[in-house]
């Protein structure tokens, strides 16, 4: 049973990772936690679902459509709200409050636009399972894990190996100096929002495929946010590690302790880890900017 629970945990953690990296990306540049991130994922899921139900598109088409839709919404948020707030010179916490407002707006907007009903993707894959001894692994889990890995590897290459990534890292390390050096930082902000949004979109489509699509499905991103804090804010790799830890921890607590106490243990452990290692597992200690 231990192995089965481990498989369950990795499959849950994989999806958290896709969302958590989006938090980490935006935090590394702007120093704020984008609480509307989960709603971007939700939007991506609805986009994909709409395409599939209207046109019978195959999985890959739906995935791409959902990713693009979410990416564009993410840029829209940046242009309409976050950029203006930054231009006012408001403290970064205001961005977070605005993000909460955006999150409420989208959740309720989705209820009006798509209805509050829970919807599921038409079954695109056999819901069969691979049997490895006593462990069962769902085909969907394998597909979603593969998608997650591909997305995260591409992201890692983009950031660490490409010229564009160099720009992002420059802006992340010091946006003010970067702007003095003649770098168009707004472009990089938009770019990062696009990347984060696309990751959220892919997470949304996978979530919708594995579970269901509904207006408040973005709430799952709270766990992903915790994962990104656990891994160290602003660290993309830390976010992935944090997400896997949270996913595995949750299933292990449910499996061996008590499912009722699951969240208590998760949050309790989070507090303990932060007390021992105040900047998260892989976070760089940021100097006091206040």
């Amino acid at each position: 049973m231990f192995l089965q629970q481990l498989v369950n945990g990795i499959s849950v953690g994989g999806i958290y990772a896709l969302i958590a990296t989006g938090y980490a990306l935006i935090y590394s540049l702007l120093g704020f936690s984008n609480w509307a991130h989960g709603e971007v994922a939700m939007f991506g899921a609805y986009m994909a679902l709409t395409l599939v139900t209207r046109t019978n598109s195959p999985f890959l088409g739906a995935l791409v459509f959902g990713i693009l839709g979410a990416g564009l919404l993410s840029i829209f948020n940046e242009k309409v709200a976050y950029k203006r707030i930054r231009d006012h010179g408001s403290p970064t916490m205001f961005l977070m409050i605005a993000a909460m407002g955006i999150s409420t707006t989208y959740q309720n907007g989705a209820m009006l636009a798509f209805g509050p009903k829970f919807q599921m993707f038409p079954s695109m894959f056999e819901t069969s399972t691979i049997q490895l001894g006593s462990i069962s692994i769902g085909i969907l889990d394998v597909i979603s894990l593969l998608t997650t890995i591909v997305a995260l590897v591409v992201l890692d290459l983009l950031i660490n190996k490409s010229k564009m990534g160099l720009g992002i890292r420059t802006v992340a390390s010091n946006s003010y100096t970067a702007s003095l050096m003649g770098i168009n930082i707004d472009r990089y902000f938009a770019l990062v929002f696009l990347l984060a949004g696309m990751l959220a979109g892919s997470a949304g489509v996978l979530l919708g495929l594995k579970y269901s699509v509904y207006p408040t499905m973005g709430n799952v991103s709270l766990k992903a946010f915790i994962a990104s804090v656990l891994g160290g804010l602003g660290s993309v790799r830390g976010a992935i590690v944090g997400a896997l830890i949270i996913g595995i921890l949750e299933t292990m607590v449910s499996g061996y302790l008590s499912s009722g106490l699951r969240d208590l243990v998760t949050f309790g452990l989070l507090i303990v880890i932060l007390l021992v290692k105040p900047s998260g597992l892989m976070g760089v200690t940021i100097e006091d900017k206040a």
Partner: protein
Amino acid sequence: MLKKVLSALLALSLVASLAGCSGGETGSTAGAAASTAASDAGSAAGGASGPSGEPIRIGYVSALSGDSALWGQAGLNGMKLAVEDVNAAGGVLGRPIEVVGYDGQGQPLDSVNALNKLIDESKVVAVVGTNFSSCNIAMAPVADSKKIPLVATAASSPSVTVDEQGKLHPYSFRIGFTDPFQGRVLGSYVYEKLGFKKAAIITDIGDNYSTGITQYLTKEFTAKGGTIVAKEEARSGDNDFRAQLSKIKSANPDVLFIPWIYKDVALITKQARELGITCQFVGADGWDSQDLPKLAGTAIDNSYYCSRPGFNTREAIEYGERYKKVYNIVPEAECLFGYDGVMWLVQVMKEKNSADPEAIRDGLENTKDFKGYLGTMSVDPATHDPTRDAAIFQIKDGAIKYIENYSVN
């Protein structure tokens, strides 16, 4: 540009507050979304032979926004159809009736505010709602102190009508089942009729409906001689239940009770089958949605649940067709509650020949054999709980099949 947005917003809020005022003063059905059918009925009532005079107002509180708005709106839609019928048949006491619906978001505090607003500003004679026990438990003392009858729809906790100390809330009534009743029906049916002795339960620990049914179901099932081999907890919105289900699988039960709302039921049953759990699934009236077989697919085939007769009598089927035609959406069970709620109040007002809240209360308390779309019910004056038959259903090949009526004492 932003200033314009702001002023537009202010203008909107102004319009909104005006709408709120007019809702209070003239009693027109509140809310843009809620105005269509009832106002049609209102204008139809202006005819020569129709009812005339000040309309009798019936309030409605439920979640009209948020993620359970689906049921809240269905209840309101059902009430509006009932209003249409009553007014077309001459109204009550020669006066037309009217529904005023306010959003309580499914939150206790919000619902209390909505109830106060209905009673103080819209001057309703009775209120229908909600489908949340937590909201009704909070609203019951308000209804008592203001002496306005409150008819809960699907709120199922015993505390809705009788408080913790065992004292009756004189102004609280309900249309649906109680948790103890459903728990007993399920425990008894599964043990006696289906013959299963080894059961597992998965409970939504954050939900009083699920924990309530679990409690009474466990009591009944073990009292009969069955054993509970696994008892797992999770929360709605968790989405992934495989950790709990893996544990249940290793306990190897004959039957798995899933007293949840249908959305989570779809996920739980699918994931259970994926993990190789082959046992029988059994659920309660939270399963009662045409969407469940669609969402859960083959995973839920052959599962049983208990609920009200629902859309299975000839009258209810016809009503469902009409509902579909008027609103162009799939009818949810809550629209039966809304319709029956209004009809029950109307019958009582006609019997008592009065629209006085006090008289309505007395009438509700002594109801005998009220026939609605949900079946025939009588009220127990000691608890205000309705006595009615439960129906057992089975999901077969993507369709819901009515099996039989079943009752326990």
